[in-house]
């Protein structure tokens, strides 16, 4: 067991964890942060994407001990003071989700993408989300949601 201390969604936490424990398991099982989900065992799907010190990571690819001293933001810490993050709003506005399982990871990745590139082109958005799989939306409305959040698309029309 190794002692780690970190900040998760604004709250300080300390725990003894097994060195092999992945960050995603720490978040889900130790902290009850079940908004972050596990979709694969090969780091392909991106469903577990969180922010580690402001950078998006697949939390199945990070050991909990590597997060010692870090600041972690999950989907549950994205909304502040009851206000949804603009990217969360955009996903709802543009119907950028259906079953919603990939959604936390997709939103966290989109937030990071827009931090790096506030006005991405459609191609840049598609390349930026390449590490996150969605099986429901065909990505059409996810791309639209990111455009919307970046102020580049006014509405989410039902057609085209």
């Amino acid at each position, binding site marked *: 067991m190794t002692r780690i201390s970190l900040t998760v969604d604004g709250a300080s936490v300390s725990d003894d964890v097994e060195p092999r424990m992945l960050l995603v398991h720490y978040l889900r099982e130790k902290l009850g942060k079940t908004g972050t989900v596990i979709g*694969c065992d090969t780091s392909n799907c991106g469903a577990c994407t969180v922010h580690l010190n402001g950078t998006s990571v697949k939390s199945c690819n990070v050991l909990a001990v590597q997060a010692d001293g870090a600041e972690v933001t999950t989907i549950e810490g994205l909304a502040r003071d009851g206000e949804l993050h603009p990217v969360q709003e955009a*996903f709802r506005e543009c119907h950028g989700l259906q079953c919603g399982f990939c959604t936390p990871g997709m939103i966290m990745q989109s937030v990071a993408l827009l931090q790096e590139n506030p006005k991405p082109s459609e191609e840049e958005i598609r390349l930026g989300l390449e590490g996150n799989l969605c099986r429901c939306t*065909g990505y059409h409305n996810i791309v639209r949601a990111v455009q919307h959040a970046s102020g580049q698309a006014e509405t989410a029309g039902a057609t085209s």
Partner: protein
Amino acid sequence: MTAVQERPGAEIGRDRRRKEDQRLITGRTRWTDNLQLPGMLHLAMIRSPFAHATIASIDKSEAEKATNVVAVFTAADLGESLGACINAWAITTDQVTPAHPPMPADRVTFAGEIVAVVVARSAAEARDAAELVDVEYDELPAALDLKEAAEATPENGGALAHPDLGTNKSALWTFDSAEAGTGGNVDEAIEKARTDGILIEREYRQQRLIPAFMEPRSVVVDPTGEQITMWSATQIPHILRFALAATTGVPESKIRVIAPDVGGGFGGKLQQTPEEMIAFAVARRLGKPVKYTETRSESLMSGHHGRDQWQRLTLAATKDGTVTGLKVDLLADLGSYVAIVGGGVPVLGAFMFNAIYKFPAYRFNCQTVLTNKTWTDAYRGAGRPEATYAIERLMNELAAEVGVDPLAVREKNWIKHEEFPFTTVAGLEYDSGNYEAATAKARELFGYDELRAEQRRRRESGDPVQLGIGVSTFTEMCGLAPSRVLGQLNYGAGGWEHAEVRMLPTGKVEVVTGASAHGQGHETAFSQIVADRLGVAFEDVEILHGDTQISHKGLDTYGSRSLVVGGEALVKAVDKVIEKAKPIAAHLLEASVDDLEFTGGRFSVRGTDQGMAIGEIATAAFAAHNLPDGVEPSIDSEATYDPVNFNYPHGTHLCAMEVDTETGALKMRKYVCVDDIGNIINPLIVAGQVHGGLVQGIAQALWEEAVYDESGTLVSGSFVDYLLPTAADTISFDVDHTTSPSTTNTLGTKGVGEAGTIASTPAVVNAVVDAVRHLGVNDIQMPCTPERVWKAINGAHGGGHADTEGAAAPHFDASTGMEGTVDRTTGGADA
């Protein structure tokens, strides 16, 4: 009361943002794997690495000694309490259906089958201990190739998936229009076309696909209460409860199944799974709650697969391109067991090979076959994509043979809009449709003529990048369905749906539906229907579903049935509420029932300004201080609706594809679809369903394939090898619609969940083939990888056919057995 201000019809047809989204975008979700119950134990499955083997021995002693391991169970330990996985569809009375134990005792029949289960205090400890279980196997010959499996007998020494059955043939299902009286004799049509017409003979492969829902399957069983409660990531909580009761002997009343938030299904969660059965048995044995959540690799290996058919087709036509007959011989790979509706999937397709066309003669033979691979069952579209692919590819071949545009040959053969209702050669009655309108709209949106002009320019200039235009017109049967018809097809259950409307004392409304959602937006669309029909505010309607305790009756969600069957059940239940409220309203308003009218959620006395909202009547019924004599103090109502017919969405899809003839690389340029699903409740949700469906169908055309090696190991067993498309692989779509309201339900709606998937696969492959047809190619096997495209262009397989199965494949005829070879140049490589 808000209801008074609401305008009837204000909700239906409106782009409502979804009610479900708040919890999903904030991570406040209820996935099964999120559940933590006090004292809960965790399961890890031990799975066979062999496709077919006898289990010689299982030594679990080391695992039992491992830290925090509570128990290790084999089939022998759990015995009869394991029950059996059900098959609900014997498509023929003599279907060969092997018994399906959740955990076989002596013989495994596919790689991934469970042979033992470890129970430990944590999931990690269970998995660690699973490594310590020592299983000895004696490998048996495995039936892996579908065509070989169909031919195998004890006499010829072919491998049998279940040697005790003596055959791999499960069922032969046939339909002949001459015998059924729905059309002519197909043999005569073929003979006539052979001498004085056009005969197109082709063989198409529907590769094996994996549904690959994003949320891995998960099950939690808590046996500690008065009932046994199962939470499961399932599409079918009601059917699952029935199946558990029927196969374990535990009374239904003692079982509660909850499908909380479910992360996708696409048919893949339409099953009573071995994992659920094992978790149920272990929880009962230990008296403690247990959880099992699969890994993605386990999901791909042992969740059911879809498609996997060989289709041999003969299309007869006159020289001007009028179809005179179609003969279909199908081999369908069931895998090692006949899954819950697996045997029936190809039969759903049987009714769809004639598609939107007026075929005068039709014969369909389907042989279902057992192999030592993962079982197959419904996957988005279930039978209809396979049929649509075949006929839409054939219609393009016919157009090429006649020398006309692919749209022209369709127009020549399709049912005209004034001919509806139309009884097809397969015996279905299509209620409504307008193929002309959808096609005209799609053509215009696509810029069809301009793209054809560009295609000609590229051909003439010898551009290394050629342009292909793919057409797919489609229809499907959905809204499964009339119970009577399902009964005629030997399906084990009905096709009704149940709904209940509870009028709360405050005037708000709780609605219970038997349809169980996994991403379709039921809470939003159903709220819109109830809000309009009952005249209450959208926000005042709460939709409850996915819990057999709350929603005690239902047939769940698959086959695009939620809205067209479940939504219609809601309409019936709402109408009963209004009917029950009417005498109470009359009494309170001191008017005659005959003088009342109900509009906008309000009963009004004709010719006066007197009136009461439905919510006020709910309150009055709750108080029950002043009700007419003999009237029940409740206006709650329920309805069980059984549709009179399937319904038949249709559409025209057009795809433009750039093909690099030097490398085989493909780039989708444009995709336009115009779907006609009748009246639309929520356009935003409908467009989303179409987008997702399109990508799943495009993925079959271009990327996805479940591949087994020669030993029966699934080599596409992770997301590294099974190529789910990413955002970077796909494009934005032009989605639009036309409207031919269904005449068989009040709402006038048709299903949309599977439409995109059904239509897009042939549109894409037609586009790829169209791009290189002038180079002598008339087929490329799916998925159309750059390698296959390149080989097709370069004639690597001869005759312009790019079929990786080789130039001469074994002939099969589902009705007569497997002999000879197919002349794969029949029909010609029309260079």
